[in-house]
């Protein structure tokens, strides 16, 4: 059970932090290429032999299809997965979610409703926590993962510690603090391990 990604959105709806944790499946191909093995329509090659590809070329600059046609290069380990979102796309999606969050509270039949707290699909659950100051912490996790509320509060604490107490970090700007990254990664690991013992949240 995995936590896929973490997004932090500022008051104005801009994405200030993003971390991806998903591990795509690895495929080892031997003599002949079995294109249908493990990959599906819409998947792209993410890395070959452990090195990330760049567009249509391998990291060395060779064209991928040429490289794969040459049997001298086999066995080759190819990682397939959904093409990763570019950072611009992520920015756009975060702003869109910010607006949807507000719509969530406006649609409410009762007065004083919160915005969207959870968004569920068959593959993941998106959890969102908005602080009293307007910052949103968004976590995408496995639907069976439990303890996400505690994780969101923990990420809030980490933000208040490693981002805000850093005097060189300006509010509402993208978070580029090493300590925040490191501590966030360990918090995610702890949450994943703890979530294995719990039922779905």
């Amino acid at each position, binding site marked *: 059970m995995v936590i896929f990604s973490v997004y932090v959105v500022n*008051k*104005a709806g801009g994405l200030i932090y993003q971390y991806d944790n998903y591990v795509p499946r690895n495929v080892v191909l031997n003599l002949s290429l079995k294109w249908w093995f493990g990959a599906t329509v819409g998947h792209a090659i993410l890395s070959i032999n452990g090195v990330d590809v760049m567009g249509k070329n391998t990291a060395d600059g060779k064209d991928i299809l040429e490289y794969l046609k040459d049997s001298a290069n086999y066995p080759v380990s190819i990682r397939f997965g959904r093409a990763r979102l570019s950072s611009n796309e992520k920015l756009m999606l975060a702003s869109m979610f910010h607006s949807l*969050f*507000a719509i*969530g*509270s*406006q649609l409410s039949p009762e007065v*004083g*409703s*919160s*915005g969207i707290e959870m968004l569920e699909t068959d593959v993941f659950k998106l959890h969102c926590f*908005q*602080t*009293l*100051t*307007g*910052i949103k912490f968004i976590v995408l996790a496995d639907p069976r993962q439990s303890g996400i509320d505690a994780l969101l*509060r923990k990420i*809030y*604490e980490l*933000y*208040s*510690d490693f981002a*805000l*107490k850093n005097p060189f970090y300006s*509010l509402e700007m993208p978070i580029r603090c090493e300590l925040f990254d490191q501590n966030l990664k360990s918090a995610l690991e702890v949450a994943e391990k703890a979530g294995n013992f719990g039922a779905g949240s």
Partner: protein
Amino acid sequence: MSRQSNRTTDSKKMNSELFTLTYGALVSQLCKDYENDEEVNKQLDKMGYNIGVRLIEDFLARSSVGRCQDFRETADVIAKVAFKMYLGVTPSVTNWSPAGDEFSLILENNPLADFVELPDNHNTLVYSNLLCGALRGALEMVQMAVDVKFAQDTLRGDSVTEIRMKFIKRIEENLPAGDE
């Protein structure tokens, strides 16, 4: 004498005198740099404001208080939770105005100003003005515009330290969704 903090959160014990010394060094350097009490007061307020806008998140993350329903609740939270958490003192909330939009925090002792005496040439200096800026900055981040100032100060000969807080208005721009 070092004060033992009794916070239940992960407190790293530190000598509170070091804190008083640090703040004193800050104020005295500002006085040397600006040589004008009014200017120093302004700078302390600005610095306090920057601290306040950051400290509020730490406060909300650790204390998990929800949104206050009215100004009275805000006053109670500030006095009983926030001051206790950060300075280890609990001021009392008194002197409510008839409209309920102004109150006073009475501090028996001010940890920032332990061992401090104001000399005669600095009698308009508000030594602990950082506190006012911090309160103003913190409340602004939760959509409350307030005016904070010292009404009485033991450093200037009064018997207690009194901080007067006045609610100005609710900040309606950039309200977090769901808070109307």
